[in-house]
């Protein structure tokens, strides 16, 4: 299939997925509790509550409410968030997204090569010391809850001034990602401060994700190394390193790409726990705040945004599949 057809087909599919997800979340959020809750306070008299209900169409049938929401979305209006002082939701998401995206980008850039290396080293040295060390690293990473890891790092690194939780930056906000904005401004000390704001959260994210990805790659690699084509390559005199990296690993990458693709989507959608512990005001925290305040409009905005991110991540994963495995053609 041609690439352009693939893109069109996947885009149409993505829109369908997003509508389906948004409808499901819309129905759930409007059904759980009273949707007027975020718009009122405890001193709002009952008569005024009914006026507010009518104003935001909350007294209409649910399909009518959804239609209003969808119509607003098509005009670029995701509504207002009562939790954040009736700020426009689109604006809130754009304000909070860069902090999450920054952490997500660094997590991807660091986790993927580290996991590739670690998984390969573990597979090559199966049941030897490097494999055992890798196993300990991985088990520690995936068995320790992120908030425990985060709090421990906070106590150690914050007290040692290696980490910041609420820094001031003297450069202008361009991307909203402090490390990138510092580079753009040529501000070295700002760059250092930005890294001190990032490093704790990044350690937790990288550790927990490398732990999983490295083990997946190790298992896939060991499986590939037992196959006939590897035996043939060895018989032809190809050295072990080349066998593993040039032959086996390419085929083992399919599972790795699956995990990395899905994880990347989650990393870019924000982790509530990480953002709360390290005081990174990103979209994960925004979403948690929206949920606890029954701010269904903000929850929907978040769902839509993460839907777009996940769909994009899956799209990139599909392209990578086709690249690494010629047996997989786009759209097939």
């Amino acid at each position: 299939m041609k690439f352009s057809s693939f893109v069109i087909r996947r885009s149409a599919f993505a829109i369908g997925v997003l509508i389906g997800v948004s409808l499901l979340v819309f129905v759930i959020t409007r059904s759980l509790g009273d949707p007027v809750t975020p718009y009122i306070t405890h001193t709002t008299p009952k008569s005024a509550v009914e006026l507010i209900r009518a104003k935001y169409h909350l007294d209409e049938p649910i399909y009518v409410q959804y239609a209003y929401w969808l119509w607003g979305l098509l005009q670029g209006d995701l509504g207002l968030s009562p939790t954040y002082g009736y700020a426009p939701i689109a604006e809130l998401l754009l304000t909070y997204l860069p902090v999450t995206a920054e952490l997500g980008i660094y997590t991807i850039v660091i986790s993927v090569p580290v996991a590739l290396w670690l998984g390969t080293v573990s597979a090559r040295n199966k049941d030897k010391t490097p494999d055992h060390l890798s196993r300990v690293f991985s088990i520690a990473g995936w068995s320790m809850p992120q908030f425990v890891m985060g709090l421990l790092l906070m106590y150690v690194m914050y007290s040692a001034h290696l980490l910041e939780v609420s820094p001031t930056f003297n450069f202008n906000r361009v991307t909203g990602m402090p490390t990138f904005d510092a580079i753009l401004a040529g501000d070295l000390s700002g760059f250092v401060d930005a890294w001190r704001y990032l490093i704790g959260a990044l350690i937790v994210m990288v550790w927990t994700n490398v732990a999983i990805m490295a083990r997946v790659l190790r298992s896939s690699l060991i499986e590939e190394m037992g196959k006939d084509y590897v035996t043939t390559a060895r018989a032809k005199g190809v050295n072990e390193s080349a066998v593993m990296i040039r032959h086996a690993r390419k085929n083992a990458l399919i599972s790795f790409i699956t995990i990395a693709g899905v994880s990347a989507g989650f990393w870019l959608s924000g982790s509530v726990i990480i953002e709360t512990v390290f005081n990174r005001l990103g979209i994960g925290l925004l979403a948690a705040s929206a949920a606890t305040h029954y701010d269904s409009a903000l929850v929907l905005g978040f769902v839509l945004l993460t839907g777009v991110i996940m769909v994009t991540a899956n799209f990139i994963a599909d392209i990578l599949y086709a690249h690494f495995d010629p047996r997989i053609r786009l759209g097939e």
Partner: protein
Amino acid sequence: MTSPIVTTTPGVSSDEYVYATDLAELGEVDPVPCSGDHCRAIILNTMDALVWYPSKTGELKEPEGQLADTWTIAPDGSTYTFHIRDGVKFWGGNPVTAADVRYTFQRFLAYNNPTGFGWLLLPWLTGHQAGEYIPWDDISKAITVDNATNRITFHLTVPTGVFLSNLAFPIFGVYEAKYAMEHGSYIPGQNVTGLKDSKMSSGENIMGSGPYRLTELIAGEGYVLTRNDNYWGGPPKIKTVKVLYVPEWSTRLLMLKRGQVDAAAVSPDVASQVKSDPSLKLFVAPNSGFTEAIFFNYNIPVQKQPAGTQGIASDWFRDIHLRRAFAYAFPYEDYAKQAYLGYAPLAGPAGWLPPGQLGSAPNGYPYSYDPAKATEEFKLAWGGKVWENGFTITYGYQDFMKGPALIGGQLYAESLQKINPKFKLIPALGNWPSFFDWPLAMAVGQNGPDANWISTVYGVGGWGTSYTSYDNDALNKLLVQGAAETDTAKREQIYTDVNALIATDLPYILTVYWPYLMAELPSLQGYVYSAAWQIQVGYAPYISKSGGT
């Protein structure tokens, strides 16, 4: 705009006050729709009001003049005339005039936003209710000015003695009319009912005259106030006030210990960590301005109850014996100890209005934990049927009260079971206002600064009675009289009668006054929490720091 907001310098400097809050609702500055803590804090610190509660030591006395230096009240309470103090200027340099004050209040009436506190004025100024469209004629007649003498007069359609106290609530900060209009805000005469002014919300169009001005606001992150060096009352000691949203307690504690913030919000369950740390101080205000109560539902929608509910009818709580039984069955002291670790004073015996306040009664709530009396009353309730048949009912609470309310529910359930094993109480999390559909609901309501706030809970039209369907004609009449009366001694007597009636009729179960707790560095001086303001960060001009970096 640079982001985020707060300093990395190890230790806050002595001309800076930094507060770490656990409240997310940062993002709205417009006084009209304002209801939350942060917008009230910004208004109090950046916009002077006609009158206010100085509360220098946290006490609640009569309101005092801020922009107004003198005022007269008609003997029947139908007009309030204020003279605007000479020499007060907005930050931009223009003088504050009666016309600016008028514009401020006209905006309240014109937008009539039901989420805000405009209802403190509406019923008396215009006779309209929150959320309704108010015709321009009614708005213009309600507030008039005499530019020659710089006086403003409020003409009440319903005379009241509480108008002055309501004006002093930290919502009615004044801003410059010309600046607002020139930058796209409301033009008098426009129909803006139900609309939003985004430039006012962000603070862009607000030109106040207060001791600080808002220089940075990032929705959901925090805000910065910078000192007005030309403030008519004298510039404050602290140059910069920074409030930042830090949701996680352990992070707030670390920031305090490192001196990165001066003060931080604390919940009772972690207060011991502050008390045991010699580098920190625990500030406790026993009354945050809120009374907590368990509300009886007088018109229970039986069909909306969870599965398993039994033994009730829609008018179940109309039986006074049943209400008394529930009141005697609640373990008040155990609850206050376990849920609030002793930081919350019991609301009995003084009643809804806390001790020391006009309207507070020495025996306003004469119920204490007494299982024997509870048993007696249960046996009398509904001719003995309640005792015989038992019941299974839901007790609702909201997420933000989860900790204490769940403890209260569990203690209550155990107490009822001990009285009669057929009595089952099921605590359940709900949200406002639908959890009032259940037979019992725990909630909080404001208890001041004026006695009339009791009407929001017990009077017709108040949120308390509108959700619980409680109604008592005699009580309503007294509350209306109390609101209308301008003589303090007579009001005192009226509220004594109100409390006597409440004590007899027992509309709700009163548990505690909500405390406010804060952890602070010892270098912070002058911090005051006032139940009249109900804001975490306090009034910054009172604050100074000793030592510092």
